[in-house]
């Protein structure tokens, strides 16, 4: 009777294969807790020949007739797509057919607060978790039943199959009043808490759920926090605490990441309140990339390249992404600050391994009195990681020219994270079909990548697929100073680029440029395409979710 064991072995192999295939999912914002936005499983989306045939397969909008607007991005697992809307409802959609499966809350009681500071609905992209044997989906939103319903926020854990509530966390962000600042902040406005968790996707790591707390348009600026709750119960962990400063500032506008051990995130400005005339807080971990201990929240290291004196509101809001650089390079944490300068830090020590563009200042920090712009500019999108290549919206050498802060707004850079300075830039793409009006800073969303093919949404409602230069030969080149281009300098631009000491680098091939039918902003602040099971899932500000695949 050896047939039975063989059968079991056979079933096990088949099961493993099936399991491996279903792992081509997208479990959280940026795909995984490392926030690398990398779909490592091959599919049609990583085949450049197939990607050229990318088209919309199905379109969904809420079945209940409520007007949706998606600033969160979809996650995909178990053949379902999950996304929350700024209208305060959270949805599960059949990822194969585009049919709505359930809505939370089922009743017409959306998750919005009654005052403006709490009226943002669900902008936090969700994360997958397992809670007591149930597959769950977790997201943050205002709780209309908490603290007078002004908009204090909690985390919700729902059964992924049914939408039933597993737990609602303790309050993690408080709204205690609705007094805005206007031209000047009153003492009443300063006395209230205006905390949000709109832009932070929960990090599920070792039975703990972490979420970043930020403010509402600096009205007024709040003290940044990371909150941690028990994955089992949703209760705030009493032994954990991270606050960014001893006064105000250091908002956590992003989604915490992990390298599998520690927790990383970035923080916002500390100076832009009280007219900016006050001195620096005694404890100031604003404008920093931070590593904390996952159990206690204590700081292991914090890297702050822009000092308080130069703080004109360059919130570091993109968040951290983990690059596994292998033996010679180690693990790096990469990000871009709102001023457009990007960094690769050693995950162990926080030491700056590189800065792009490099300023050649010690430790990659800007000296007080410097002339570069460190203002409220729009490099807020995290990068995608492919091996040791980071694809990110950053500024290039154009940042070093006066008023050059917008140099990289429509540009994706691929940076070699573990190469020498000479080879830092792998390619640059001036992304087509982006909106170029007054809000040109939000031209492209957060890129995702699979098999060297980059996917990114644009403000004019397009999905663009781009082939890394190893996947397809480049189609031309760009100067590493964005201001030196054909439109600016004329036909001699290539010679000028070289004469000025910059490099001509490849410009990668665009494999597909698909206009999404509703034509609305698909980039938002930092929306991402979710790459799962051979399909691209995109949510738009116009209230649609699209699934695209090669057809």
């Amino acid at each position: 009777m050896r047939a039975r064991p063989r059968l079991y072995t056979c079933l096990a192999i088949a099961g493993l294969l099936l399991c491996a295939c279903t792992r081509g999912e997208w479990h959280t914002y940026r795909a995984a807790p490392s926030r690398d936005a990398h779909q490592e499983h091959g599919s049609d989306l990583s085949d450049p020949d197939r990607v050229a045939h990318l088209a919309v397969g199905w379109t969904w909008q809420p079945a209940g007739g409520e007007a949706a607007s998606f600033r969160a991005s979809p996650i995909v697992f178990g053949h379902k797509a999950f996304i929350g809307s700024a209208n305060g409802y959270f949805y599960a959609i059949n990822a194969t057919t585009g049919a709505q499966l359930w809505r939370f809350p089922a009743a017409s009681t959306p998750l919005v607060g009654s005052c403006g500071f709490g009226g943002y609905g669900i902008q936090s992209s969700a994360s997958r978790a397992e809670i007591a044997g149930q597959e769950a989906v977790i997201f943050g939103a205002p709780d209309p039943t908490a603290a007078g319903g002004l908009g204090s926020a909690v985390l919700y854990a729902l059964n992924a199959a049914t939408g039933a509530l597993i737990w609602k966390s303790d309050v993690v962000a408080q709204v205690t009043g609705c007094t805005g600042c206007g031209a000047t902040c009153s003492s009443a406005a300063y006395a209230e808490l205006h905390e949000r968790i709109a832009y932070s996707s929960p990090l599920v790591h070792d039975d703990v759920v972490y979420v970043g707390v930020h403010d509402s348009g600096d009205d007024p600026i709040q003290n940044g926090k990371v909150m941690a709750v028990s994955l089992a119960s949703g209760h705030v962990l009493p032994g954990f605490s991270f606050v960014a400063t001893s006064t105000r500032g250091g908002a956590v506008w992003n989604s915490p990441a992990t390298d599998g051990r520690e927790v990383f995130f970035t923080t916002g400005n500390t100076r832009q309140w009280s007219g900016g005339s006050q001195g620096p807080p005694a404890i100031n971990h604003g404008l920093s990339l931070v590593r904390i201990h996952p159990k206690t929240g204590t700081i292991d290291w914090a890297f702050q390249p822009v000092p308080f004196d130069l703080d004109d509101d360059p919130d570091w809001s993109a968040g951290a992404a983990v690059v596994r650089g292998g033996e010679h390079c180690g693990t790096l944490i990469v990000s871009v600050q709102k001023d457009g300068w990007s960094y690769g830090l050693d995950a162990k020590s926080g030491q700056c391994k590189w800065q792009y563009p490099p300023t050649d200042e010690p430790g990659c920090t800007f000296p007080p009195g410097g002339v570069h712009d460190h203002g409220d500019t729009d490099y807020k999108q995290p990068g995608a990681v492919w091996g040791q290549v980071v694809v990110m919206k950053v500024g290039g050498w154009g940042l070093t020219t006066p008023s050059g802060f917008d140099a990289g707004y429509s540009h994706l850079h691929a940076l070699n994270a573990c190469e020498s300075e000479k080879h830092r830039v792998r390619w640059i793409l001036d992304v087509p079909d982006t909106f170029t009006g007054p809000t040109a800073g939000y031209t492209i969303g957060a890129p995702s990548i699979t098999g060297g093919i980059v996917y990114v949404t644009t403000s004019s409602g397009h999905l663009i697929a781009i082939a890394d230069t190893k996947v397809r030969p480049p189609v031309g080149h760009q100067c590493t100073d964005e201001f030196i281009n054909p439109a600016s300098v004329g036909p001699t631009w290539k010679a000028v680029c070289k004469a000025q000491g910059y490099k001509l680098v490849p410009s990668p091939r665009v494999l597909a440029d698909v206009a999404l039918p509703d034509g609305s902003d698909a980039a938002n602040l930092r929306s991402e395409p979710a790459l799962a099971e051979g399909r691209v899932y995109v949510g738009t500000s116009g209230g649609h979710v699209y699934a695209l695949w090669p057809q």
Partner: protein
Amino acid sequence: MTDSQGSTQHAPPRACLLLVAVVGVPTGCQREAFVDRSPPEEEPQGEVQFAGSEPKNAFHLEEGNVLARTAFSSVAPANSQIEIRDFQFPPHVRTRLAGLPGPGVIEVYSGHGTLALSGTTQQLLGGVVKGVPAGQALEFDNQGDFSLVVRVYVVEGK
């Protein structure tokens, strides 16, 4: 392969292969290490269109591979004109600019080098601000590997 009862057991392996094929093939299941560490090998050929917004006050090329632009220009009180000009000087090159039409202030944005003016030489580094008189030639020596970028504020009497 024979079992203890003497019957041939070909069916399970075939079924197994079939099952594995059924599960594995349609889903295109393949784990691939999409990791590539090498930089681009050589400069590409060809041309691409500039897709971004048309730059305001674009740089133009002046003699000596100097990039220049007028970032701002306005009539000012007392019959004067204010201009803000930006210059990018190429690396390891000494460049001479004609005298300014009025007194000015130069502010160094990036790079390092020197400015020779009226027989004196002054060091230029990011953040340095210098006053310059009207009508005197300015000689910039970019000693760095990248552009020396300078903003010049000029007040011109009419």
